[in-house]
């Protein structure tokens, strides 16, 4: 399974905000077990999608030089379940960004309905003990997440260029 929990960016303003969408398809493995006969998106995976949206936003703000890792979820609230067939909109905004890390505020909508919100705190690993533990290889923005970087960069293009593409 690929650990990519967003389908694409629809808005991207460098250093400020990013919005991604996630279509919940009944064909996804997760719905077979969660729950049998009652396909609900696990809240943890909604947070993962929100964190990937915000994590790319934070990473791009420093041109992906930092290893951005999810450090802490300060608050997370869910107002209702998200079901297969729905399209989730993950909107994230940088509240605070400094050399050691960043704070993101995020909302989750299904259509126009707010179904969840969270505050997510990211750390820049090299600015802490990361270098000693992991060396220079940027394991965060590699492999599968590289695909997301491409999405983020495409979304960061000017609006008219994106609409022609």
């Amino acid at each position: 399974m690929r650990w990519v929990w967003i389908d694409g960016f629809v808005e991207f303003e460098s250093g400020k905000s990013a919005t991604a969408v996630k279509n919940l398809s009944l064909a996804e493995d997760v719905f077979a077990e969660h729950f049998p006969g009652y396909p609900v998106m696990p809240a943890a995976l909604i947070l993962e999608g929100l964190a990937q949206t915000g994590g790319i936003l934070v990473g791009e703000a420093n041109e992906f030089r930092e290893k951005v890792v999810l450090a802490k979820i300060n608050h997370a609230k869910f107002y209702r379940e998200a079901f297969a067939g729905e399209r989730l909109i993950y909107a994230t905004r940088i509240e605070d960004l400094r050399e050691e890390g960043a704070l993101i505020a995020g909302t989750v909508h299904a259509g126009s309905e707010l179904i969840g919100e969270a505050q997510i705190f990211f750390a820049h690993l090299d600015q802490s003990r990361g270098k000693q533990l992991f060396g220079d290889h940027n394991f965060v923005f590699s492999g599968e997440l590289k695909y997301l970087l491409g999405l983020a960069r495409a979304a960061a293009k000017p609006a008219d260029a994106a609409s022609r593409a």
Partner: protein
Amino acid sequence: MQSKEEIQRKVAAVLVDALNVDEEEVTPEARLQADLGAESIDFLDIVFRLEREFGIKIPRGELFPESIFQGDPDFIKDGRVTPRGLAELKAKMPFADLSKFEKNPTLEGISDLFTVDAIVNYIENKLQAA
């Protein structure tokens, strides 16, 4: 200028939110790690919140100095803080009470210097200097 009580109240509210602890636990002597269960990542969260609450800038390493923890042999030897290390701690953390620590300056003991009161003192100094 905010009164010390006001600063204490705001610092306590920040810690209650950041560490998910009860207000009663946040006594002036409470140690962030040993008593309030703070982990290293929480320190940055606390810095973010203090900056916002008090409208100040907290430069990296000013409230929670890292240099002393990096195992510099000048500062730390055989698990104990050297006299030079003590001088460094005093210089970097004028807001902390080192009187008890000086009697038995172990490396593990450093984390006990980060108390609620130390943060309140730091903020008070910072606001006075502003």
